[in-house]
Structures are given as structure tokens and as C-alpha cells.
């Protein structure tokens, strides 16, 4: 009996998945987004929909606004005092640029991994437990479970399980970055923003992070900024090409790399500039 129910549920799940494949939900909708640093416009009329359980890559040359865009998605860009923004960014259908949207609330759902690994000068355990703790989880048992689950999720558990109380600065660069991913996973985010997460890593560590991204997208939507086009081609489902603060082209990754519709995209991905 029980077995039968199991298979039934599985069948239903598969059906549902197929259905959602056809009509993916939008996680982030960007409408007419403009952004200025003082008098310089860094983002111009961005319109971009980002889909659930996909890896969305943002590529483009330095200074094209790709980092600015990803930092606007969790409003990290506000740390710069002279920034002005207009337009709308809908996260799960609510405008995050609205004054009433609490930035802490947003960042609890949207994790971030930075360009340079930036663990806290604390133990490995404390690094991962930081997020849950600031959100009020005090129960040791629950924290232990979160730490293990997150470290496993970031594929670093086996490497650090025997030294959870050692300082995170003792880890290698690649391990530190996976620890930072684990730290982001610990708040069980809906989206993870990655701002050139492998640019400071060696090729093997880069590969590990890339594999991890593939694994994570089953549960989480991932937006990754990269200046490595092979990486975008390898790991993403959709790719947006940014140039001078504008989205030149945004479509699925296969077509953008095999058959770019804009001349500028073609020039960039074939290495003629950038």
C-alpha cells in the first residue's frame, strides 16, 4: 500500500515538474530600471525577467553595469551613498525598491556570494551559523543541523567536518569560497546572487564551484555575474549580455552562444573586444 502511494506521488511530482518546465515562474522581474552613480548613469532601462530554478548568467565587459545590476537585486548597491535608482524590481511580485520593503527581509531570502572569498575571522562553524543566529535561532541542536546541512550543500563538509572550530582563514581560497556559499545556504535562501564567484580561484576550485551551482539550482534560483564566457556557456540556462549599462541581448544560453542575434554580442563572445 505504502509503496504504491510513494510511486503515485512520484509520478505526480514528475508531472508537476514537467508542467513547471513549460511555464517557469518568474523570480525577479526588472522593469525600466535606471541607476546613477552621482551624475553617471550605470544602468539604462533594464528590462529583465529571471526564472525560478535556473542559472542566469550576466556577461559583459568591465564597467558594463553587470555587478551594479546584481547588487541592485539585493539592494547592496545602497551602501554607496551617491546612488539613485528609478524603475521597479519585482521579487516574487513585490517591488523591492519600494520604501516599505525592508532590506533585511529581502536579504534573508536572497543570499549573496562575493567576488573575493570573504569569510568572517571566526571559526568555520560560526561562519555558517552566523546567518541563522542573526535571525534569532539559538537552539544548539538546530544550529548544528543547519551547519552540517549547509556545508554538505556546499560540498565542503567532508573537508572541514573534523575542524569546524578552526578559524576559517586557515582554509584555501577555493574552500573559503565554498564556505561562503555554505554560509549563504544557511539562511535557506530562495535566490543566490553570485558576483564573479570564481574570479579569485584556481581552475580546480572553479570547477568545484561550477558543479555546485549545477547542484544548487534544483532548489534555488541562481544569478551569476561572470566575465568568463566559457563559464557562462557551461553552467547557465539563460544569459544576459550587458554593454554600457544596457541589456543588449537576453535569451537562452545555447542560442546566445551559437547564434547571437546582435552584432555586438557576437563581437564580444568571439573575443573581438572586452
Amino acid at each position, binding site marked *: 500500500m505504502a509503496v504504491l502511494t510513494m510511486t503515485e506521488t512520484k509520478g505526480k511530482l514528475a508531472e508537476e515538474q514537467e508542467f513547471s518546465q513549460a511555464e517557469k515562474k518568474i523570480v525577479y522581474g526588472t522593469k525600466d530600471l535606471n541607476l546613477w552613480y552621482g551624475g553617471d548613469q550605470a544602468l539604462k532601462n533594464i528590462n529583465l525577467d529571471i526564472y525560478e530554478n535556473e542559472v542566469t548568467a550576466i556577461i559583459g565587459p568591465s564597467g558594463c553595469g553587470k555587478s551594479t545590476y546584481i547588487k541592485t537585486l539585493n539592494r547592496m548597491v545602497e*551602501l554607496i551613498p551617491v546612488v539613485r535608482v528609478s524603475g521597479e524590481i519585482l521579487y516574487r511580485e513585490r517591488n523591492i525598491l519600494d520604501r516599505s520593503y525592508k532590506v533585511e527581509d529581502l*536579504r534573508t531570502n536572497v543570499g549573496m556570494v*562575493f567576488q573575493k572569498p570573504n569569510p568572517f575571522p571566526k571559526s568555520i562553524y560560526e561562519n555558517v551559523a552566523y*546567518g541563522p543566529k*542573526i535571525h534569532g535561532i539559538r537552539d544548539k541542536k538546530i544550529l548544528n543541523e543547519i551547519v552540517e546541512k549547509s556545508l554538505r550543500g556546499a560540498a565542503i563538509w567532508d573537508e572541514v567536518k573534523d575542524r569546524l572550530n578552526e578559524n576559517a582563514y586557515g582554509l584555501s581560497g577555493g574552500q573559503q569560497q565554498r564556505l561562503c556559499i555554505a554560509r549563504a545556504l544557511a539562511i535557506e535562501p530562495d535566490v543566490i546572487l553570485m558576483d564573479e564567484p570564481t574570479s579569485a580561484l584556481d581552475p580546480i576550485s572553479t570547477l568545484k564551484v561550477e558543479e555546485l551551482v549545477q547542484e544548487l539550482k534544483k532548489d534555488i534560483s541562481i544569478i551569476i555575474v561572470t566575465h568568463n564566457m566559457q563559464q557562462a556557456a557551461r553552467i547557465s540556462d539563460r544569459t544576459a549580455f550587458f554593454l554600457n549599462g544596457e541589456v543588449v541581448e537576453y535569451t537562452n544560453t545555447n542560442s546566445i552562444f551559437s547564434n547571437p542575434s546582435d552584432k555586438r554580442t557576437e563581437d564580444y563572445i568571439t573575443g573581438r573586444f572586452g
Partner: protein
Amino acid sequence: MKYVDAAQVQKKMGTRLLANKLAKNLFFLSTLFGLIVLVILIYRVVAQSIGWIDADFIFNKLSTDPEKAGIMGAILGTLWLMAVVAPVTMVLGVGTAIYLEEYAKKSRLQGFIQTNISNLAGVPSVVFGILGLTVFARALDLGSVVLAGGLTMALLVLPVVVVASQEAIRAVPQYLREASYGMGATKWQTIKNIVLPASLPGILTGVILALSRAIGETAPLVVIGIPALLIPLPDGVLDKFTILPVQVYYWTTDSALVAEYANLAAATIVILLIVLFAMNSVAILIRNKFQKRF
């Protein structure tokens, strides 16, 4: 035709090398001067104090008889003073530093506050004494007690703590704050959990240096009216008190009457120097131990 004439270069070589040597020796002499003065100072003081520092000297109360006089009162007074100065400067100084570094927007007002904190550090200590006398001793009617002296000294050393704490807070890399904000932490949670722990060594160094300045100051307390009389040992912040440098000041002043007072003053200076050197060493140790953490 070459522009650099070898003969010309040769001719000037001697003077150049001489100037080079001269510069080195000049700077060495400058350094030596300070060292020599310090050595003479320490030698004179130590020579005068020989035979006067013993257990009685440290544990006895003040007395008009040089043979019986001790500095227990001044030691306790110094400790009580530190007990007031340390928490007050810590709270006010670190609070100000956090506000200026983490909250205040870069504006004219912030620049104005910053400049005036530096100005405050340049105000002569006797002026702080007058402030302490008017506000704490008179207006608040505390009298010349530990609390009044401590608050005055706290104001005096506040700029040191503010500036040291600001530097320590500024040295915490921005990427650590970003990581914390990125997980939905509030500003205060980020300051409390990330910024303060990381800057604590720097802040502590500043506080210790400030304390060692506070217990070495004389003028403000003399202005407030620390008595040169025989007073009971202080055992609270509302008691009258004296501290080591003030004791030195009075003994030196009275050495015209009783010659041995000069020896007592020298002995007190030795004790004070030991305490100050010890505190500064602790500050340096803390700084070295926690350096290069990022």
C-alpha cells in the same frame, strides 16, 4: 656627444658622498639625543630613590615623617581613577567612533566634528582641569573626589580613544560588513557581531594608552583641588583622593622644607614609570598579537 660628462661626475662625487654620510650621522645624533636625555632622567631618579623603595613605602599611608611616609593612598587613588576613566572613555569614545565611522554620512558636519575632536586633543590639560572644577566639582557639587577627577580625566583622554577606535574600525575590511548585510543582518547586528570584535584589539590598545596618559597627568587634578593633606585611604568614587603624579608634585614642592621629600618624590616616580611602562607594554603586546588578521 654624451650628456653625462664622466669628468664632471667624478669631480662632484666626493661632495655627494660626504653629504650622504653627513645626513646619516645627523639623523643618528637626533635619535641619540632623545635617548641620552631619557637615560640621564632615569639615572637621576633611580639614584635618588635608592634605599627608599621598600614594602613600607608602598603599603604605608601618607605621613609628614619621611621615614614613615608611603604611597598606598596614591596607589589606591590611581586605581580608583582608572576605574572611573576606563569605562567612561570606553563607552563615550567607542560610541563616538562608531557613530562617526558607521553612521555619520560624509558631510560638512561630520568633517567639523572630526576636526574638533582633533582640536580637543590639543587643548592643554590645565584647561580641562578648570572645566572639571567648574562643572564636576562645583556645579554638580561633587567636590574634589575620585568621580570629579575621573570624569575630568575621561574628557581629557577622550580624543585619544575616539581616534584610536576610529582607526581600528576603519581597518575592518568593507567586505566583512557586506557579507553580514548580505545575509540580512541589520546595521547594529553587523557592528556588534563583526565590526566590534574585529576592531577590539585596536580599541583596547587606544584605551590602555589613554589610561596611561590619564594616570600620568597632574595639572587637571591640582586645579580641581586634590588636597596635599593627610587624607584617609579612598574606598569609593565619592572619596577624596590623590594619585601618584600629584604626590610627586607636592613632595617636590615641599622638598625645600624637608630635604628627604625629594627622595620620596624620586621613589614615587620610579613606581609610576614602572606602572606606565607595564601598561604600554601590554598595549604593544595586544597590538602585535592581533596584527595582520585580515
